[in-house]
């Protein structure tokens, strides 16, 4: 394996990582703040891609124009879902939350089939990224680099939001102590709606920008939510940098695993998840302990 080849494989892994990050960071936020494990998270990821496909009618020329529309649609959808459904299970036993989000997964799956059709949808490279670039002498899809850049910007913006704005501080605070915030007069239900909308928005956005990378169908939702779980568990539930680290680890394991032992590269990612849960259940960069005393 030559150096250029190795490097390109690494970059491919980073592109997957970028997609995984955008998929998973919303899940992490939602769990951190609301305590909800969102089994429908992959469904919203796929919906974002469907929105974009439908808006552009599969033509990559309109990619950038409609991307923000797809993002906005996801944000709104997230807000609506939280208001109408999530709110009612916030304080109930986890298995109700799981069933509710699973119900959403099922509904979105069939509604997508009805509206968009069951076939795989794909899109070409977006405007400006149609030509490959030469990396160490080898052609490499330029959009992969673009995607990595997009994810990096998103991560940075998210960090800035959480650590440098008033609302971001509230979001971080509600992750720690919801009751305290309520006592201080903060409108926590509205905050929850915003957080959930943000999480779903990120997922939808992630799905949309990932469309040139992988074609989608409704079945992707079921696989991707598990990938999101792996990333978040490995990185640490509720930690942005943890999600980024987790995404990179999983992305690279999948990229290199496919070379070394293609049959079991997926099994490796689950094994990593299990190992983390066994030795450091709160994730590589997470905080809360989870083991029984």
């Amino acid at each position, binding site marked *: 394996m030559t150096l250029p080849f190795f490097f390109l494989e690494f970059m491919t892994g980073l592109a997957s990582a970028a997609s995984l990050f955008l998929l998973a960071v919303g899940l992490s936020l939602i769990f951190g703040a609301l305590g909800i494990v969102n089994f429908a998270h992959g469904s919203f990821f796929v919906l974002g891609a469907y929105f974009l496909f439908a808006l552009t009618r599969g033509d990559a020329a309109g990619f950038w124009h409609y991307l923000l529309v797809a993002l906005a649609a996801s944000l709104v959808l997230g807000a609506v879902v939280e208001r109408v459904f999530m709110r009612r299970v916030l304080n109930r036993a986890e298995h*109700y939350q799981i069933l509710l989000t699973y*119900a959403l997964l099922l*509904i979105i799956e*069939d509604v997508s089939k009805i509206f968009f059709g069951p076939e795989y949808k794909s899109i070409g490279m977006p405007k400006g990224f149609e030509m490959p670039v030469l990396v160490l002498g080898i052609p490499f899809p330029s959009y992969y680099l673009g995607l990595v850049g997009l994810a990096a910007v998103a991560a940075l913006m998210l960090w800035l939001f959480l650590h440098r704005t008033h609302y971001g501080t509230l979001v971080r605070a509600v992750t720690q102590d919801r009751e305290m915030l309520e006592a201080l007069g903060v409108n926590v239900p509205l905050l929850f709606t915003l957080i959930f909308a943000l999480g779903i928005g990120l997922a939808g956005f992630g799905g949309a920008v990932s469309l040139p990378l992988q074609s989608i169908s409704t079945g992707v939702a079921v696989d991707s939510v598990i990938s999101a779980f792996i990333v978040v*568990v490995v990185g640490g539930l509720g930690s942005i940098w943890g999600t980024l680290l987790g995404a990179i680890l999983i992305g690279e394991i999948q990229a290199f695993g496919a070379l070394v032992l293609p049959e079991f590269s997926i*099994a490796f990612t689950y094994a990593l998840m*299990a190992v983390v849960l066994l030795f450091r259940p709160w994730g590589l960069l997470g905080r809360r302990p989870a083991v*029984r005393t």
Partner: protein
Amino acid sequence: MKVKLAVAAVVLAVLPWFLQDYGLQVAIQALVLAGFAMAFNLLFRNTGLLSFGHAACFGTGGYATALLVSKLGWNFAATLPLALVAAALVSLLIGFFSVRLTKIYFTMLTLAFAQMLWAVVHKWYGFTGGDNGITSLLPSGLLGNPKGLYYASLISLAVVSAIIHVVRRSPAGYTLRAVRDNPARAEAIGISAFEYMVAAFVLSGTLSGLAGFLQVAWQHSAFPDLFYWTTSAEVIIAVILGGGSEFFGPVVGAVVLVVLEAVVRSHTQYWPLALGFVLLAMVLFFPSGVISLFHRRQREEAPRAAA
């Protein structure tokens, strides 16, 4: 309660003579899922542990049978003991490591283990046939004809229910619930939570393997989706839909789920959509499960009767 049970037993015993081919198949499916759901609820109701990995035990039971029949030419029924042992071993492995974690982390680890197993089975074309699965498994004798399989599943459900009933009433059963209710208090009176939870997991997983065996006998095949997380989700749905806090809740849930699917599928392909709505309705309007709907009616009728 005893009267209702006796009536149900009689109905179930004679049901096959009143059902057409298709109806019988649906009935068998319902019984198999009911057994799986009862096995799952043994763990969930008595320890509070929500496992998302029971598909691993279910699938192990099924694949053990499939492999022995397809590769070694064994008789279907003869594979049962080994299928149970295999399921027990897998449960022991998963349970031993998972039980020491709490709540959502426990759930995630069971999910991870089950998915690992799925990933391996799904890709190991050489041994398990990969995603082509193992097909053309034709049981002979009792398990080979639908009525026989029906009774086998019914008896299996009865046995599983009896085991659960006996264990629940025993000191071990109470110990499990003590650990569920208040782990610190349980430790203080001398109970080591860990070993009981693992034991419960193993029993639950082994009985899930029994369901897997029956599933393969009915399907005449084994596919990796037996191990996939949506299978774990299905059994959880069956339990909660029926009502996890009643003894036969899981059975009710399984029957409702299977029958509903059969009915909906005969009219439309959009069963997931229908199920999604049913689950939504349940979470929002009758969270204690279908069984609680019967209790409500009873309570409403009682005052009238008294008057």
